[in-house]
C-alpha cells in the first residue's frame, strides 16, 4: 500500500470524525500556561475559532486516531463493511498536529476518537498516550476530549480521566433494540457500564462535603454522550426518556442529539434522506427545558402529537397552547416555577422579574424591557396594566 501523506490522512480522519456533534470546550477547570514553557489555557467558556458552512462551531481539532474498525455499525461511516479509504495516525502525528494548530490559534484543543482496532484496550491505550504526551512532554494546557471505548479496562479509564478534560461514551441510538439491530458488536449494557464507571470516578474526584485529602483530578469537564436521531423508528418521547435516564444515572454534562446524516457508501439498512435538522433542534430545546425549566418528559411531549414534538413551534409554546387553562400568568404574583413556563420568558428574564417586582408593580413595558420579545410573552401574561382580551385567543400569530 502506498503511504498516505499527513495531509491526506488528516482529510480522511477529520472527515471520519465529523459525525460526532460535540465540539464543546467549556466548563473545565481554570488553568493556563503562565510561568511555564508550555502553551495552552482553559478559562471557563470555550471559544469557537471558526465556523464551517454547516453553521457548526469549530473549536477543537476533531480527529479519529484511525478509521480502521473491526465493528460493523450500520450508521457509521467507518464500519468495517464500508469502502471508505482507511488511514491511521501515529501518536506523534496527532500530538504534532494538535500543537501546530494550537500555536496558530486555530483551536482550543483536541477531540480524539477512534475506530476499534485489535481490541478495546489497545485502542484506548493509544488514545491515552496521545493525551499523556501532550500533557507531560509538551506541557499542553489546552482542552482535551477523549472518546471512551466501552469495555476498555477501568485502569485505562482512570488514566484517560487523568489527562483529559472531558470523556464521552456514545449511547448511539435511543433504544437497545435499535442498537442491537444496527450495531451487532455493541452491547448496550456495556456502554452504560462504561458511563457508570466514569460517574464513579467523577464522584470520587468531586466528593460531597469537604474531603480530608485532595482527591485525584478526573475529567474536570465531566462526561457526555451522543444519540443519533432519525436512523431508527424511535419517537421523541423514547429519545427524551432515554436522555432523562442517562442524565439522572451518570451525571452527564450533555446529551448530544445528532440528526442522522447520509454518509458516503451508506448501508442500505438506513434511511438515506437529508438529516432531520429541525427535529434535532426541537430535541435540544426540549432537553434544555427538562434540565433547567422544571419540565418532565411526558409534559414536554404532550405539546406534540403521538409522542413526537411539534416541529413548527418550540416545545414550550407547544406545551402552553395545550395548557391554556394554566394561563394567563400574573407576573406580579406567580411563583418562579410558573414564570419559567411562560413562552418567551427565559431564566434571566424570570430572575429580573422576580427581583424588580419587589420594588414596584410591573407593567407590560417593564416586562418588555426584561425580555427579548414581548410579542411572544404578551398573550400569556397579566401585568399591572395589561391582560389578554379573551382568555387566550392565541391565533396564528403566536404560532408563527
Amino acid at each position, binding site marked *: 500500500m502506498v503511504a498516505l501523506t499527513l495531509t491526506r490522512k488528516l482529510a480522511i480522519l477529520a472527515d471520519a470524525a465529523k459525525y460526532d456533534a460535540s465540539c464543546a470546550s467549556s466548563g473545565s477547570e481554570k488553568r493556563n500556561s503562565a510561568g511555564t514553557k508550555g502553551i495552552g489555557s482553559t478559562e471557563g467558556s470555550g471559544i469557537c475559532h471558526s465556523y464551517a458552512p*454547516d453553521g457548526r*462551531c469549530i473549536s477543537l481539532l476533531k480527529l479519529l486516531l484511525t478509521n480502521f474498525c473491526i465493528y460493523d455499525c450500520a450508521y457509521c461511516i467507518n464500519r468495517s*463493511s464500508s469502502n471508505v479509504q482507511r488511514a491511521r495516525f501515529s501518536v506523534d502525528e496527532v500530538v504534532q498536529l494538535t500543537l501546530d494548530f494550537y500555536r*496558530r490559534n486555530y483551536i482550543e484543543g483536541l477531540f480524539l476518537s477512534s475506530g476499534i482496532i485489535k481490541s478495546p484496550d489497545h485502542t484506548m491505550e493509544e488514545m491515552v498516550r496521545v493525551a499523556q504526551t501532550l500533557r507531560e512532554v509538551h506541557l499542553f494546557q489546552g482542552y482535551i476530549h477523549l472518546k471512551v471505548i466501552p469495555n476498555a479496562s477501568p485502569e485505562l479509564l482512570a488514566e484517560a480521566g487523568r489527562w483529559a478534560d472531558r470523556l464521552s461514551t456514545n449511547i448511539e441510538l435511543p433504544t437497545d433494540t435499535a442498537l442491537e439491530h444496527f450495531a451487532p458488536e455493541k452491547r448496550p*449494557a456495556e456502554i452504560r*457500564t462504561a458511563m457508570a464507571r466514569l460517574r464513579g470516578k467523577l464522584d470520587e474526584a468531586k466528593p460531597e462535603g469537604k474531603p480530608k485529602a485532595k482527591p485525584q483530578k478526573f475529567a474536570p469537564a465531566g462526561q457526555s454522550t451522543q444519540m443519533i436521531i432519525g436512523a431508527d423508528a424511535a419517537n421523541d418521547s423514547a429519545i427524551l426518556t432515554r436522555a432523562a435516564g442517562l442524565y439522572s444515572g451518570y451525571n452527564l454534562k450533555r446529551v448530544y442529539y445528532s440528526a442522522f446524516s447520509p454518509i458516503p457508501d451508506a*448501508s442500505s439498512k438506513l434511511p438515506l434522506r437529508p438529516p432531520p435538522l429541525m427535529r434535532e433542534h426541537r430535541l435540544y430545546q426540549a432537553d434544555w427545558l427538562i434540565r433547567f425549566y422544571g419540565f418532565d418528559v411526558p409534559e414536554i411531549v404532550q405539546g406534540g402529537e403521538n409522542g413526537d414534538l411539534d416541529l413548527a413551534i418550540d416545545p414550550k409554546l407547544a406545551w402552553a397552547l395545550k395548557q391554556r387553562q394554566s394561563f394567563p400568568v400574573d407576573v406580579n404574583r406567580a411563583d418562579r416555577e410558573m414564570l419559567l413556563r411562560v413562552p418567551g420568558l427565559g431564566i434571566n428574564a424570570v430572575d429580573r422579574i422576580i427581583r424588580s417586582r419587589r420594588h414596584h408593580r410591573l407593567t407590560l413595558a417593564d416586562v418588555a*424591557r426584561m425580555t427579548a420579545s414581548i410579542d411572544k410573552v404578551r398573550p400569556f401574561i397579566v401585568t399591572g396594566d395589561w391582560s389578554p382580551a379573551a382568555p387566550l385567543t392565541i391565533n396564528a400569530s403566536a404560532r408563527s
Partner: protein
Amino acid sequence: MAPSQIVWRTGSDENGLFEGGDEMLPTPDGPVGTVPRQFMELAAGVIQHSDPERFAHLYRVLWRLQQDHQLLSNAGDKDNSLLAHMASAVRRDAHKMKAFVRFRSVFEKETERFIAWFEPDHYVLEGTAPFFARRFAGMNWGIVTPYSSVWWDRENLSFGPGGRKSDVPAEDAVEDDWKTYYASIFNPARLKVSMMKSEMPVKYWRNLPEAEHIAPLIRNAKAMGQDMIERAATQPPAHHMRREARKPEPQQIGEITSLAQAREAVQSCHRCPLYEHATQAVFGEGPEHAEVMFVGEQPGDQEDLAGKPFIGPAGQVLDAVIEKVGIDRKRVYVTNAVKHFKFEPRGKRRIHQRPDGGEVQACKFWLNLEVEYVKPKVIVALGATAAQSLLGRASVTIGKMRGAPIQMEDGTVLFITNHPSYLLRIPDAEGKARERAKFEADLVMVREAIAALEKTP
C-alpha cells in the same frame, strides 16, 4: 464641571472649532464626588469603544450619578442602555479577537516567532493581550493591528505602534493543513450558511485563511449531499468479508446448566422492559453453595452502577445485622427478586420505583435458577416484593407472616421480614430502634434455623 462645558478629543483629533486652550480648565476645589464600582467596571469596557463620543457619554453618566446614585440599576434609562450596548460591542469584539487571530510562524535568528494581523472594530488589543500571554506563555508572539501592536517575549508584554497587513508573514507552512481540516470537518448534508455568517461575520473573512474554502464548499454541498443519498452501497471490502467468515456462529442461548451460565445470560435478558434504562443486570453474589439466601427487592442506584447487590445503604444495614446476630457471612448468598433497577429520573437523581407484578413474574426465572443451583437450606425474603416472588402470591403482609418459618415444597425453609431499606426510611429514632429490634429478632431466628438444620443431617 457640567458635561455641556466639555469637548472631548483624542490624540489624533484636530482642535475643536471653539477650543479655548488651557485657561479654560477648572481649578480643583475639594472633592468632586464618588464613583460606584459598577461604573468603573462598565467604563473599563466602554472606554475601548471606537466611538469618538465615548468619553462624553461616560462623563455624562458620571455626572448624572452624582445626583442619582441608583441610576445604573435603571435598565430602562437611555444613557444606561447606550453604555451597556457599547460595553457589549467591545466584549464581542474582544471575544472575536480571541477566536479569529491567526498566527503565522517565522524564524528570526533561529528563533521561531508567531505573528498575526488583526483588524478589531474597537480598541481591544490592550485588554485582550493578557489572554494571549496566559495562553501562549511558551511562545514568542506578536499581534499587529492598524492602531497598535503587542509583543510577548515569553516574559513580558510590550506595546508598539500599529502597522499594516504586509508587516506580518504572507504564509505559513501549517495553513494548508488547517484549510484541509476546515474542508473535511464540514458536513455538506447540513448546509446552514446564515448560522455561519452570524457567528463568523463576513468582515473577518479577509484575515481567515480557511475562508477561501467557504464559497466552493457551499457551491458543491448540494451535489455532495445528493450523491451520498443516491449512491447505493458498494460491495463490502475483502477484509470485511474475511473477518465475517471467521466469526463464530452467534451462540444460541440454550439450556442454562450452571450458575455461572445464568450469571452471564442474565445480561442479555429482555424478559421485561426494565433492561432498557438500567445500567446492567445485577445478579446474586456469594458462595455457590451457600446455606442461606437473602432475597431483596431490586438493585438500587449504587448496585446498578457497580453491578453488585446490596452495596448501598440498605446493604450496609443488612451486613451490620448479619454480623451482629452472628450469621456467618461466608455462608450467605444475597440477591434480588428483580435483577434490573427500576427508577424514575428526577434531574440528576434516580428515584427508586417498586417493580410491578409482571416484572417480578418475568424475573422469577432467574431467581428460580439461583435457588436451583445454590440450593440454600434457608431463604430469607426481605420485603414484600421478595416474598411475593418466592410465594407466587399477588400480595403479602409482612407483619402477619414474619416470625415463623414457612416450609417450602422443595424442602427449603422460608423466612419473611422487612427490607432493610424500610429501617432507613423511618423518621423517628424510637420507631427506628423498635423496627430494627424486630428485624434483628427475625435474623436471630434465621441463625437458629441454620444451626438446627446442621444438627439434623
